[in-house]
């Protein structure tokens, strides 16, 4: 078993049992959603729908509705694309790279971080798709035989590499995420009370039963997928950076782009994870699982990657001078002192200065401070992409064509809309999905749970009488007992309970004899009131419990009879 040093801070606070973990995670799924959830979901949905409207308008009218011009022919959409892809990187980094490094603290956040990845990459993918203008021929990015002679794609083009990288990344991340979800869906399935939830979660859980062999495979699949996803996550943002680095535009033509983009991506992704987690842990009361230590670990990652990004900025500046290429030098001078100085300045402050504050232990353990910095970093990273893309091209080789970029309402609407859509998906995820990897967290309970580490947890008591309960089962259908109990309780929920004291003479209902009355009493039906509340659904439920005289209650219309008998009684 995994042993952890005693001085290491526990990952799960307080005393929890395996059952507590299940309860804590399932509570938000099984209970009613609070009003705040509906409000937040509603707002996100409205913004998202506005974004969809903007996209539809854009598709109907054309790319001319964007603020692009002859000089700045690539601006807002690619900025947003890179920003979203970058955010996505943290999820895979947490679930894959930290798995390979055996970082146990990842288990509390990997599920939600990876959900973020999937939704973020999905948002990112929208931008190149709508940039095609004709969305319905989007399949042209796939090499398929076609009627235009042998017209193939250009596999030398980084833009095509991007298609393969992003789609592989999206689908492999999804598979990785889903394979981890299956056992947790099974947990929810086995606890579900309502038939709809039961049905839905059994469909989602693929019939997972948790056999030893399956867990054995599960662990290997997770490990190999992590091994595959690790180079994948580095390749994706490297390839995104090739979109720029392989061109000869001064400011883009840089060999340090791939590592610089990857660390920037991880930097912005972790900031987004912080934003989401800080709200999530409070909203779902998961403070025992995602606590200050987790936030601190993530802040350290933000600090390290932020510093790498800072070094990259300075390296770029140095190289632009040291290379002796005057166009390069101009591109960087223009960035810092030209008309877009404010974008450059906000990028430098948000991305270079703010992560350095994390050196102070007090600050990186402060939740409020972390939340503010996470938002600042997200803004900063958006500006980084904007600076790289727009300032490099808006003053090109020909001063007469120099120009500025002004986003139109469509530009802004589509961008804001993707944020709305992202949060719509995320809110739905938070409501219906296990936000913590239940089965994984259980594996670290004994090694990293606070009460197990300091010895206050009650030791496992051996059962003195040895066998607490031996289920004597002779009959074949004993395994349906649970199901029957469930059915009875749902039947009772609908028609109400009563006791033998209030017993009416059910034999007065035509069709009910002494034998059947006994059966009904056995289920817990004693009064006419209960019978009168029955409808088709309850009849069927009752028939499936008693397995006697199916359809009889409906045919004889017991409910109506019971109502009449009640009236007579009064």
């Amino acid at each position, binding site marked *: *078993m995994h042993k952890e040093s005693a001085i290491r801070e526990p990952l799960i606070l307080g005393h929890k049992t*395996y*059952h507590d973990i299940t309860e804590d995670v399932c509570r938000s799924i099984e209970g009613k959603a609070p009003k705040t959830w509906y409000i937040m979901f509603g707002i996100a949905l409205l913004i998202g729908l506005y974004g969809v409207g903007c996209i539809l308008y854009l598709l109907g009218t054309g790319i001319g509705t964007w603020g692009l011009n002859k000089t700045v022919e690539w601006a807002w959409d690619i900025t947003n694309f890179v920003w979203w892809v970058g955010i996505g990187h943290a999820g895979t980094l947490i679930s894959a790279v930290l798995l390979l490094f055996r970082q146990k603290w990842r288990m509390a956040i990997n599920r939600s971080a990876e959900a973020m990845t999937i939704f973020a990459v999905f948002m990112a993918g929208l931008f190149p798709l709508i940039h095609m203008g004709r969305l319905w021929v989007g399949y042209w990015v796939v*090499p398929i035989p076609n009627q235009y002679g*042998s*017209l*193939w*794609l*250009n*596999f*030398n083009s980084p833009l095509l590499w991007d298609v393969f*990288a992003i789609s*592989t990344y999206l*689908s*492999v991340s999804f*598979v990785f995420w889903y394979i981890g979800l*299956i*056992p947790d869906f*099974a947990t929810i399935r*086995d*606890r579900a009370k309502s038939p709809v939830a039961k049905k839905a979660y*059994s469909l989602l859980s693929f*019939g*997972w*039963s*948790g*056999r*030893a*062999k*399956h*867990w*054995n*495979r*599960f662990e*290997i*699949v997770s490990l*190999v*997928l992590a091994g*595959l*996803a690790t180079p994948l996550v580095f390749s994706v943002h490297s*390839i995104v950076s*090739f979109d720029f680095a392989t061109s000869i535009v001064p400011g883009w033509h840089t060999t340090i782009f791939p590592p610089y983009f990857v660390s920037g991506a991880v930097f912005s992704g972790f900031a987004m994870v912080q934003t989401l987690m800080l709200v999530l842990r409070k909203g779902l009361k998961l403070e025992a699982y995602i606590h200050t230590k987790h936030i601190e670990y993530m802040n350290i990652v933000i600090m390290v990657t932020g510093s790498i990004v800072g070094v990259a900025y300075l390296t770029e500046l140095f190289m632009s001078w040291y290379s002796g290429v005057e166009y390069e030098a101009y591109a960087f001078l223009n960035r810092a002192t030209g008309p877009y100085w404010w974008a450059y300045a906000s990028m430098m402050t948000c991305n270079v200065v703010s992560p350095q504050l994390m050196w102070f232990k007090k600050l990186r353990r402060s939740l409020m401070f972390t939340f503010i910095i996470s938002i600042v970093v997200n803004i900063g990273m958006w500006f980084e992409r904007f600076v790289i893309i727009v300032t490099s091209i808006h003053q090109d080789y020909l001063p007469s064509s120099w120009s500025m970029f002004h986003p139109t309402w469509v530009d802004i609407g589509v961008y804001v809309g993707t944020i709305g859509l992202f949060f719509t998906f995320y809110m739905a995820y938070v409501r219906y999905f296990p936000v913590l990897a239940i*089965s*994984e967290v*259980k*594996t670290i309970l*004994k090694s990293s749970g606070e009460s197990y580490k300091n010895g206050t947890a009650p030791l*496992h008591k*051996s*059962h003195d009488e*040895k*066998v*607490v*309960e*031996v*289920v004597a*089962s002779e009959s*074949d259908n*004993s395994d349906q007992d*649970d199901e029957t109990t469930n059915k009875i309780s749902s039947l009772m929920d609908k028609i109400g309970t009563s006791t033998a004291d209030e017993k009416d003479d059910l034999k007065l209902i035509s069709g009910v004899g002494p034998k059947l009355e006994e059966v009904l009493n056995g289920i817990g039906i004693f009064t006419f009131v209960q019978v009168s509340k029955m409808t088709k659904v309850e009849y069927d439920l009752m028939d499936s419990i008693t397995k006697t005289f199916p359809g009889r209650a409906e045919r004889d219309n017991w409910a109506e009879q019971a109502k009449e008998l009640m009236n007579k009684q009064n």
Partner: protein
Amino acid sequence: MAERVIYAMYDDDDVVKDAAKKLVANGIHIRDIFSPFPIHGIDPIIGVKHTRLGIVAFFFGLLGLALALFGMRYFMIVDWPMNIGGKPNFSLLENLPSFIPVTFEFTVLFAGHGMAITYLLRNKTLPGMPADNPYPRTTDDRFVMEIFVSDNEQFSIDDLHEKIKATDIIQLEEKDYKKIK
């Protein structure tokens, strides 16, 4: 006669591991253990062999690699060579550097999906499949051993019960085995 199966329930992962060790030492064959999370070290005790899914992933990866290279060679070199900015495009080897990203992505795509699909098929976990864990709490906090009477015919039923009860058990049930999948 239907096959009889004994379900022995435990409430702790370490306890079930100790119990399994003890039972196996006594010569009892445990067919399977249902647990809410992977119990580390249980596989060698009850004789679950190491999975070969890693090898499957490797071969799917190879397939993806080969497909990508063959495809790009056909599209870019054989079928319709294009002169794009004078970049070398007359042999696969010369053009290989710019084929590496797609080759890599395709390898990962095939290895990841191939392994995942194999995993789901081998587990018989597919959309719409019924679950066959004997008790719903085995996905929460219960650990259940599945012991077939027919696997342990050297013991009498009572003997078998006695031996299982000697471990730190919380519930024991014997019933007809019903194959669900």
